[in-house]
């Protein structure tokens, strides 16, 4: 009997401890709600704020190249109320932090019973992020400094801070240290994280990136680092993913059946590479980090040995030999590059993909606005209205027989007298991923479709070409649509079969495009270049030689009276594009996903 009781007792103890540690997604949601001190009904989600926060961060002078992401839970050891212990809630937290690449915010904020305050909380964190520098600095003094700065400069932040502090301390007595400068008291076992503060990045805090088998990352012995005293730790159980499981592991510890979920979170690449995974992971106490990451380079390497093609590219003749500029010799290398114009045959004509319909609809409304532009045409021999200026001028003219006598004017739909050649880079680098399922080339294809659909509706004349290169021996110049061909299903089919391959000998492609555009009779000729990186090839083209040749080619095109304009998704493009195109003739698009919409908008802006 006695042993039975004691067994029961130890059982429940084990049970409790297990609850404590691994209850995760099994926890009873009712219990959780009750235990939660958050006001979820008035919570604000990051998703709804993302764009605003980004702009706000720029407003405060933040680095424009940084992205905004959702952070996952980070574990901090704290004392918890009994109820919280039971429900497993409250022991890991969504901290706000940043690294060189991005800012990381909690997915929702709901500390306050007032939507406006929760909303402001995001802005506050954004403001803090723009001021706090935790690189080698003490987290507490830095946060206090940034707080003082924000509350002094902005009356609005001051109001928020005072209100927030009051409410937080009321709701979370553990947080009573917020204002105390006594760091010792503050780092006591009451180290409940302050939701108004910025915390160090995972990388600096606990070298998670090394994937050492560390159980408790936060406590590396000896170091008097304040960040470590916060007892942050993240459980990172490294598992072996050679054995591909379906992500669900069932196992039986002595007493309790429990399961953990395995999520492949790609920590090396980018923290929110797969937001869904993070969302799912949100409620897991333990995120198991797999070694495997969605490594694009491996895929890219495989493709280097060019795969077989079902669609045949039909070469048009043996190609042409073209010149290239050698900056060292300061002269053209005559007939140095062979260009192979080619067109894809056996192509299935396709309709506009359904996924683009919504975007087209939105663009259509902008196109309608452009079409409203009507142009007054003066001095017509007949027309809608009398042009009084012409009439009066005639009356005052000395020699009436010599007068052209064109007294009318008409309003006609603007014919824009515009020819645009869109040159797309389809080198192998476009195989890289935008997200896990979408590659750059997919966005380029979508862009080409939306673009041609729009220009077709605007009745502007256009051509589409794509290129890739293998040294000077072979520059593939794919004809997707020339200026004479009508836009239709076949053109879309050709866009659809474009495949990434080889390298980017941009100069040659620009020269060839210039030759084609030159034959167009329009007054305005635009060469739009869609690219994802620097000019490069496997020979010396990769480097200054390539840049100089491209610059020369662009200058040549300008000489012909053609306006070049480059749209790139290469964030580093600001280093070389101003040199190639001049300050006002390029745009860098940070988010490749926006390319289809932005490309058309840029075109409309350029030609408005």
């Amino acid at each position, binding site marked *: 009997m006695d042993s039975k009781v004691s067994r029961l007792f130890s059982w429940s103890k084990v049970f409790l401890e297990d609850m404590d540690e691994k209850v995760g997604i099994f926890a009873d949601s009712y219990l959780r709600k009750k235990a939660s001190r958050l006001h979820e009904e008035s919570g604000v989600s990051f998703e709804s704020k993302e764009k605003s926060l980004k702009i*706000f961060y720029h407003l405060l002078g933040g680095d424009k190249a940084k992205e905004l992401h959702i952070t996952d839970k980070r574990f901090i050891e704290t004392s918890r109320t009994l109820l919280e212990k039971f429900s497993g809630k409250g022991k890991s937290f969504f901290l706000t932090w940043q690294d060189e690449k991005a800012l990381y915010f909690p997915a929702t904020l709901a500390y306050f019973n007032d939507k406006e305050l929760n909303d402001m909380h995001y802005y506050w964190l954004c403001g803090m992020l723009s001021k706090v520098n935790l690189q080698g600095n003490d987290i507490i003094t830095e946060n206090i400094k940034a707080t003082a700065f924000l509350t002094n400069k*902005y009356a*609005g932040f001051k109001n928020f801070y005072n209100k927030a502090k009051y409410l937080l301390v009321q709701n979370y007595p553990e947080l009573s240290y917020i204002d105390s400068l006594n760091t010792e008291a503050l780092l006591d076992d009451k180290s409940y994280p302050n939701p108004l503060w910025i915390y160090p990045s995972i990388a600096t805090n606990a070298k998670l990136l090394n994937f050492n088998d560390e159980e408790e990352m936060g406590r590396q012995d000896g170091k008097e680092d304040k960040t470590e005293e916060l007892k942050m730790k993240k459980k990172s159980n490294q598992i072996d993913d050679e054995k591909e499981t379906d992500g669900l592991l069932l196992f039986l510890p002595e007493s309790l059946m429990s399961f953990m979920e395995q999520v492949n979170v790609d920590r090396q690449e980018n923290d929110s590479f797969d937001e869904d995974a993070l969302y799912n992971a949100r409620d897991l106490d333990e995120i198991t980090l797999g070694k495997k990451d969605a490594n694009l380079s491996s895929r890219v390497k495989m493709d280097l040995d060019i795969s077989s093609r079902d669609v045949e590219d039909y070469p048009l003749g043996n190609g042409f030999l073209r010149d290239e500029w050698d900056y060292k010799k300061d002269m053209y290398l005559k007939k140095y590059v062979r260009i192979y114009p080619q067109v894809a045959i056996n192509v299935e004509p396709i309709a506009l993909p359904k996924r683009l319909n919504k975007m087209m609809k939105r663009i259509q409304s902008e196109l309608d606005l452009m079409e409203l532009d009507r142009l007054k045409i003066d001095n017509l021999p007949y027309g809608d209205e009398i042009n009084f200026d012409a009439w009066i001028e005639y009356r005052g003219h000395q020699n009436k027989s010599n007068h052209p006598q064109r007294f009318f004017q008409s309003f006609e739909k603007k014919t824009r007298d515009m020819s645009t050649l869109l040159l797309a880079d389809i080198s192998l680098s476009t195989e890289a991923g935008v997200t896990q399922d979408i590659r750059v080339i997919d966005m380029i294809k979508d862009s080409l479709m939306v673009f041609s659909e729009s220009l077709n509706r605007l009745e502007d004349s256009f051509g589409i070409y794509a290129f890739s290169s293998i040294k000077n021996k072979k520059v593939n110049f794919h004809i997707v649509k020339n200026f004479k061909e009508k836009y239709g299903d076949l053109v879309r089919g050709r866009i659809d079969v474009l495949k990434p391959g080889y390298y980017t000998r941009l100069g040659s492609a620009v020269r060839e495009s210039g030759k084609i555009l030159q034959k167009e009779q329009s007054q305005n000729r635009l060469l739009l270049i869609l690219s994802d990186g620097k000019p490069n090839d496997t020979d010396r083209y990769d480097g200054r030689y390539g840049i100089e040749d491209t610059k020369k080619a662009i200058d040549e095109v300008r000489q012909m009276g053609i306006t070049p304009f480059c749209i790139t998704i290469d964030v580093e493009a600001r280093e070389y594009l101003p040199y190639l195109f001049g300050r006002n003739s390029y745009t860098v698009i940070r988010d490749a996903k926006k390319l289809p919409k932005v490309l058309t908008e840029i075109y409309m802006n350029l*030609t408005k």
Partner: protein
Amino acid sequence: MSHSYYLPQANEVELFEAAAGMNLPVLIKGPTGCGKTRFIETMGERLGREVYTVVCHDDLSAADLVGRHLIDENGTYWQDGPLTKAVRNGGICYLDEIIEARKDTTVVLHSLADYRRVLPIDRTGELIEAHPDFMLVVSYNPGYQNVLKGMKPSTKQRFISLSFTYPKPDIEKEVIIKESGVDEPTAQKLVNIAGEIRQLSDSDIQEAVSTRLLIYAAKLMVKGFDPYEACMHSIVESLSDEEDVLEVLQKLISLHFTKAE
């Protein structure tokens, strides 16, 4: 004598005076509302020359600049355009936003903008030699990226160029105080707001807040409007129509000038 208030940012006054003395035309680049027009007005007053301002648009014809025949009870007569008036009588002809005018319109300026300084009027067969006090000034905003607009290099290369930007914070503050009569702390806040908005890039906002808008806001405040409201109506709503951007700007204003509760 001088009525307009203008606080120089650098050596633009000296440069302009030198150009005027040497009969050289001047081109002024700069974003909207940074003081281009005010500068010309002030210089006109300083030099004692009348300013003929023409705001260019894409329907502006050469006749709008040079002049045209009109009718009265006696038949037709010739009416000089603003350019011809300035050429005949002396004065500054200021073509604002010249980039908006069609390229063929601006070609009439060529013979005026170089050593010849003559204006041929083909409708009357006249060839007018410019008055010694005639000066040609054009301005444009280089911020827009547009293929169809832009100055021909042959036009551009006839001018002495001055590049304007928004004034430095302390100068801008002084300008706001002087123009609106607002107190110093408020002017400082407005300048802070402007500094922050000007951090935004083209992708977020088309063009940053101008000194002119800041002065409007300050004027509304002096009239007794709540500072938050004043900023909303003069700054925020004028800068964007996009909801995300509006929301952030609104937030920014509320951080500086707390909403009246």
